[in-house]
């Protein structure tokens, strides 16, 4: 089991090294950076939904919370290291409290969806109504609808004047995603991750085995929120402004669409779904023949109808069907297919 994890790590390092080298030749790094950040956000929901069975309609809440935490802390502290850490911790703690409230109350599926959606709405409405001068945290004005611009962006730890931006920032984000990916892989291979999958499959059975489902779901929920928070902080640094739109329902919707299109129950799916759709949106912005909302909606409907498992699992089975039957080099292929399956979780 440890063997396959180390193989996972090596594979991840290789693939991400190649991608980090090749991708900037095709897409501008500034755009790539945000694709990477969205990938991380997709992964955060992919983890809790695809592996833990928790459908959260408000993953954007943690994303926004991470971004706001970073912005507010950065204005007050003027150095980016502590704000980055806070941006991971605050959403995680918030999610732990929210999760505890929901899971210890035995709320499931639709009700869970309503609560997460409502909490996101509350945050959205609250952030939108903080335009007045009375909403201040330390030195940071909350800014309401207009958000918070002009905070200290990422710097080399300990040196507030050495900003990390441009291409360097892309490498930071890409490496951060690779690290998060490896950590998620390790988590899923650990007993905790396996039990989480068990919970997704059959909550009652896992409880009857003696596992505390409530605590484990809460913990997984918090881990997902921590990743989303990190993505939020990276996003804040990238955009150099945070606005309440980060909390909006459409943002939450997009994260769910990424996961569905990419493929649930895989680690790569949500990342690819996020990056792919965000890039599609970026490309669509350069034409104005067809309304872009319409296209996004159509994509979601078609996927739910015809490819409900998402692209990555579908490709994986296609791979198996088309290569698995070949007599020549079959063993080799099978091994590769297996690797791929492992890669996909």
């Amino acid at each position, binding site marked *: *089991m440890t063997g396959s994890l180390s193989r996972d790590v090596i594979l991840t390092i290789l693939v991400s090294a190649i991608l980090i080298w090749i991708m900037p030749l095709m897409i501008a790094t500034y755009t790539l950076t945000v694709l990477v950040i969205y990938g991380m956000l997709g992964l955060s929901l992919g983890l809790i939904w695809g592996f833990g069975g928790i459908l959260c309609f408000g993953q954007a809440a943690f994303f926004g919370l991470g971004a706001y935490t970073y912005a507010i802390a950065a204005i007050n502290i003027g150095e980016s290291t502590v704000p980055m850490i806070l941006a991971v911790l605050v959403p995680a703690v918030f999610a732990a409290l929210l999760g505890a409230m929901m899971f210890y109350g035995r709320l499931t599926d639709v009700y869970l969806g309503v609560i997460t959606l409502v909490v996101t709405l509350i945050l959205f409405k609250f952030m939108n109504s903080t335009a007045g001068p009375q909403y201040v945290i330390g030195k940071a004005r909350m800014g309401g609808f207009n958000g918070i611009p002009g905070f200290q962006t990422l710097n080399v730890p300990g040196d507030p004047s050495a900003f990390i931006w441009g291409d360097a920032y892309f490498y930071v984000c890409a490496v951060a995603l690779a690290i998060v990916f490896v950590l998620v892989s390790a988590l899923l291979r650990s*007993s905790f991750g*396996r*039990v989480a*999958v*068990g919970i997704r*499959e*059959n909550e*009652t*059975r*896992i*409880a*009857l*085995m*003696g*596992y*505390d*489902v409530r605590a484990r779901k809460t913990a997984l929920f918090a881990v997902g929120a921590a990743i989303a928070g990190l993505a939020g902080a990276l996003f804040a640094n990238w955009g150099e402004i945070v606005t309440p739109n980060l909390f909006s329902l459409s943002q939450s919707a997009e994260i769910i669409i990424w996961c569905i299109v990419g493929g649930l129950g895989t680690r790569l799916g949500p990342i690819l779904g996020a990056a792919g759709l965000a890039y599609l949106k970026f490309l669509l912005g350069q034409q104005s023949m067809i309304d872009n909302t319409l296209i996004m909606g159509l994509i979601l409907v078609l996927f739910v109808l015809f490819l409900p498992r998402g692209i990555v699992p579908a490709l994986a089975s296609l791979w198996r069907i088309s290569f698995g039957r070949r007599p020549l080099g079959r063993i080799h292929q099978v091994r590769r297919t297996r690797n791929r399956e492992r890669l996909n979780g």
Partner: protein
Amino acid sequence: MAEIVLETQALTMRFGGVTAADNVNFKLRARELRCLIGPNGAGKSTFFKCVTGLQTPTEGQVFMRGHETTHWMPHQIASLGVGIKMQTPSVMDNLNVFENIWLAARRFYPSDEAGRKTTEMIERLALGSIARSNLGQLAHGERQRVELGLVAVADPWLVLLDEPAAGMSAEDVDRMTDIIRELNKTAAIVIVEHDMQFIRSIAEQVTVFHQGAVLMEDHVDRVMADPQVRNVYLGKKA
């Protein structure tokens, strides 16, 4: 006399105006095997759910090896070393046999030992050929066997089984009986069951439920011969 591992005192469960379990006093000793029988709606399943923590009784107490577990959650009860199997197969369909059993073993043993115990259990249950198949693809009997395996792998001292033989072929039932006998060497077992054939083949002591209350409690042969029991239960069925 062996120690008492499960005891209920005046256990009562009401749903609205209906009393599903009525003042049940029940005792089970270590390594005892007890069958609960009774017609539909007699309260055996309600009793089972109250004991396993799936429902909280309206009145009365439940004790397990001296702990009062009345208001405990199922996972707390299971953590004591109590194995529970529900009526319908409750397994993880998209995981394979090994993973299913491993998850149960992992709760009580470190990762490596859990793997070893899982392999052993798979051998014992003769599931080796399908160890890597997902549960969703298996036949009903195989699924029941896997579930029993994941109850047994945790080395419980008390096992609660709700209709383990339901819907199984004669061959499967025989194999099931063997497994339960094996389990019974180390654990006390409570079986809620309909199938009289199965009960005859396995049980000694039997508790008969009727209208939520315990009608009688005795050796299986005497219970079968009892006219009152025949009247409320067997008579209807035969």
